[in-house]
C-alpha cells in the first residue's frame, strides 16, 4: 500500500526569521524527489517537519493511503524514515546498529538476522558486520545509516545530503543503491543534495526551495503537481 | 538491556543469600569502649550466652553516648562507669535495677621526666593543681566519657577551670588515641589502668600517680526502664544483669586476663 505525503501551507520560522512560508506540495509518485536550494534555504527543516520530528508553525502535513487520511501516530511514524547528514551512530556493532529499528518494532530475532544480512549485503557492508560502528570510515558510516533506515522497508524515505562528506567511490555506491531502490519501485524517496550532477543522475523529480517557497523545476519533471 | 537485568538479579540473589543472620533471642547492650577494647566482653559474653542462650549484642561508645542510647530506648541494658550520672539517670526514671559490678582504677600517666613533679604525691587533686601551676600540657578525652567525667570531677575539686587554657587540650577521642596524643606532646593524661596496661608498650610514658581513692572507677549495670520504652527486652536484660552480679558472672570477670596476662577488673558486686 503506497502512502502519499501532502503539505498544505507549511510555515515555519526560527526566532522570528521565516524559513518556510506557505509551502504546499503533494508527493504522490513513487520514485526519487530531489530537493535543492542554497545553504540555509530550509531544506533540512522541511525534511525534519515532513518526518514528523518537528512541528510546523502553521499549515498541515497529512499522509494518505488510498485516499484515507492516516492518523498521526507511532504506526505512521514507523513507515517513514529519515537519514540525517550526521548519522547518529550507536556505540555498538554495525549489525546491532542496523538491527535497531527492527528490535524496537519487536520483530523476531530470526527475521531480524535475516533482514540485517540482506540489507548489509545491499550496501556492501557484510564483511563489516561485527565491527564496532564507531570505527567505520565516514563513507561506510553513511552507508550504514542508509542500511539502518532501509531495513524497515519504509514507505517514505527522507535522505538529507546522503553523500555530503564522502568520496567519489562511496558516492557511486550510494547512487547505485538509490537506483536499485528506484527499480524496486517500493518507496517514495525525498532527498536533498548540493550536487547538480547527482540530482540529474538519480532524481526523477526536481524541487527547489527558495525564499521559503517550494517549487518544481519543469525542466526535469513535467508530471509534478503544483498547489498554491 | 536484558543482560543488565540478569546481571542485576544475580547480584540481588547473592545479597539475599549472604543475608542469613537470623535474630535469635538477643539483647543490645550499650557499653564503653574500654570494656570492648580490653577484651572483657569477648571473654565473658560467650560464657553468658552458653549459660542462658541469650545473645548480647554490644555497641561500644563513650559513656555519654551509651547513656543517651539507653535514654532514647536504643539499648536494652547499659553497662558504664560513671556512677553519679548513672544514679541521676535512674532517679530520672530512665533506668531501673542498677547494680555495681566491678571496678578498675584510674592513673595519671606522663613522660618519665615529669615536668610538674607530681611523682610521689598521694592526692590526685594536688597532682592536677601542680600540672595547672606549671602549665604543662594536659590531654583530656573531652568526649563526655566516664574517664572524662572523672577528670572533670577532679578539676572541680581543685577549683581550677582548665577549659580554654592553652596547656589544656580536649581531643574528643577514645582513650588510646588520647594517650598517643599525650605521648607525642609529652603531656599528662588521666587514663584507666586497663587501657594503660594494654598500650603502655607502645608509649614512652609511665604511671606518675596512682592509688588515690578518688581515682576509683566503678562500673555499673542497669536496665532500660520498660515503662519508658515498652519495646525493650526487660526480662532478658534482667537475666543478664542478674548473671553479671551472680557468682558465676563475678568469677568470669575475675578470670579475665588481657592479652598481656594482666588482670584488669576487680569484681565487687554486692
Amino acid at each position: 500500500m503506497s502512502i502519499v505525503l501532502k503539505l498544505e501551507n507549511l510555515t515555519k520560522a526560527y526566532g522570528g526569521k521565516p524559513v518556510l512560508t506557505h509551502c504546499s506540495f503533494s508527493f504522490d509518485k513513487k520514485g526519487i524527489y530531489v530537493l535543492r536550494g542554497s545553504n540555509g534555504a530550509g531544506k533540512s527543516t522541511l525534511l525534519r517537519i515532513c518526518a514528523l520530528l518537528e512541528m510546523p508553525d502553521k499549515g498541515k502535513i497529512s499522509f494518505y493511503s488510498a485516499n484515507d487520511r492516516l492518523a498521526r501516530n507511532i504506526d505512521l511514524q514507523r513507515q517513514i524514515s529519515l537519514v540525517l547528514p550526521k548519522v547518529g551512530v550507536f556505540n555498538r556493532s554495525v549489525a546491532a546498529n542496523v538491527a535497531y529499528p527492527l528490535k524496537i518494532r519487536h520483530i523476531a530475532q530470526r527475521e531480524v538476522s535475516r533482514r540485517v544480512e540482506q540489507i548489509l549485503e545491499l550496501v556492501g557492508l557484510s564483511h563489516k558486520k561485527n565491527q564496532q560502528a564507531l570505527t567505520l570510515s565516514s563513507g561506510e558510516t553513511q552507508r550504514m545509516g542508509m542500511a539502518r533506515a532501509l531495513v524497515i522497508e519504509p514507505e517514505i524515505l527522507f535522505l538529507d545530503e546522503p553523500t555530503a562528506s564522502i568520496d567519489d567511490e562511496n558516492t557511486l555506491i550510494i547512487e547505485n543503491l538509490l537506483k536499485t531502490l528506484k527499480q524496486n519501485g517500493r518507496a517514495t524517496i525525498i532527498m536533498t543534495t548540493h550536487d547538480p550532477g547527482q540530482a540529474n543522475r538519480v532524481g526523477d523529480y526536481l524541487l527547489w526551495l527558495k525564499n521559503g517557497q517550494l517549487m518544481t523545476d519543469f525542466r526535469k519533471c513535467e508530471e509534478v503537481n503544483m498547489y498554491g | 538491556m536484558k543482560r543488565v537485568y540478569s546481571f542485576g538479579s544475580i547480584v540481588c540473589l547473592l545479597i539475599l543469600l549472604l543475608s542469613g543472620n537470623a535474630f535469635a533471642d538477643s539483647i543490645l547492650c550499650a557499653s564503653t569502649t574500654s570494656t570492648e577494647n580490653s577484651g572483657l566482653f569477648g571473654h565473658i559474653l560467650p560464657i553468658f550466652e552458653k549459660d542462658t542462650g541469650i545473645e548480647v549484642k554490644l555497641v561500644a561508645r563513650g559513656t555519654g553516648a551509651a547513656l543517651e542510647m539507653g535514654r532514647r530506648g536504643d539499648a536494652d541494658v547499659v553497662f558504664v562507669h560513671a556512677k553519679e550520672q548513672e544514679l541521676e539517670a535512674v532517679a530520672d526514671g530512665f533506668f531501673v535495677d542498677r547494680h555495681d559490678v566491678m571496678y578498675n582504677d584510674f592513673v595519671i600517666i606522663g613522660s618519665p621526666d615529669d615536668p610538674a613533679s607530681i611523682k610521689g604525691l598521694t592526692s590526685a587533686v594536688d597532682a592536677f593543681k601542680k600540672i595547672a601551676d606549671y602549665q604543662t600540657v594536659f590531654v583530656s578525652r573531652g568526649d563526655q566519657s566516664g574517664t572524662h567525667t572523672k577528670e572533670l570531677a577532679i578539676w572541680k575539686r581543685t577549683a581550677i577551670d582548665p577549659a580554654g587554657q592553652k596547656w589544656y587540650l580536649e581531643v574528643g577521642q577514645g582513650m588510646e588515641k588520647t594517650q598517643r596524643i599525650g605521648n607525642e606532646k609529652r603531656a599528662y593524661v588521666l587514663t584507666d589502668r586497663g587501657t594503660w596496661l594494654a598500650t603502655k608498650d607502645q608509649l614512652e610514658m609511665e604511671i606518675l600517680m596512682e592509688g588515690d581513692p578518688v581515682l576509683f572507677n566503678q562500673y555499673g549495670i542497669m536496665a532500660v526502664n520498660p515503662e519508658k520504652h515498652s519495646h525493650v527486652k526487660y526480662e532478658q536484660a534482667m537475666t543478664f544483669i542478674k548473671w553479671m552480679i551472680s557468682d558465676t558472672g563475678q568469677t568470669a570477670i575475675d578470670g579475665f586476663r588481657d592479652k598481656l596476662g594482666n588482670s584488669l577488673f576487680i569484681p565487687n558486686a554486692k
Partner: protein
Amino acid sequence: MAFILESFHSALILIVRLDAELLNIMLLSLKVSGSALISATIVGLPMAALLALTSMPLKGFFLNLMNTCMGLPPVVVGLFIYLMLSRSGPLGFMGLLYTSTAMITAQFVLALPIIVALCHSAIVSVDPVIRQAALTLGATRSQASLTVIAEARYGIISAIIAGFGRLMAEVGAILIVGGNIAGYTRVMTTTIALEADKGNFELALALGIILLGMALLINSLLLIFQRRAIVRK
C-alpha cells in the same frame, strides 16, 4: 617504612588463614555496600534520566542539591539516620537501628547523590543526534530515551564505580547507625577503626590492605563490564 612490609605480611597471613570471622566481616562489607549501591542505582538512574531527558520544574535546583550532597560528611548522614531510626525518633517503631538494614539505608543516602549527579552528566553528554537518530528510525519517545541511556552506559558504570569506592571506604555513617556489633554490623572499615583505636596498627593496616584488594577486585570486574560496553577509536 618497615611497618608497611610488616602489614603486607600480616595481610597475606590473614588472607591465607581467612578465618570465619574475617570472612564474615568481608562479606558483610560487600553486602552492605553492594545493596546500598544497587538500590541507589535502581532509584538514582531513573531520577538522573528524568532530570536529563525531561524538562521539569526546579530541575536546576535539584541538580545543584545533588551535586552539593555528593560532599555530605558521612557522620552527618549517619547522625541523621540515627535520629530517624532511634526508638525515640519518628521511625523508631521499625526497630531498625543497629542492623545491617540501617547501614544500608545510610549508605544508600550517601550513594544516591553520586549516582544521580554522575549519571545525569553521563546522559546529558550523549550526542543529541543519538536521540534524533532513534526517533527517525521509529522509536517511541521512551524507546529513544532508553537508547540514549544505553549510549551513556560507559559514564553510568563510572558513576557506579565512584559510588562503590565511596561506600567501601565509608566508616562515619555505618559506625553510628550500625554500632559496630561483632558478628552483626561489623564491617571492614569499622573493624579497621576499632583495631586502630586499640592500637593494633599493624592489624588495622593489614585489614586496610585487604579492603583495598577487595575494592580493586570489584572495580576490575566493573571495568571489564565497562570495557565491553565501550569502543575505543
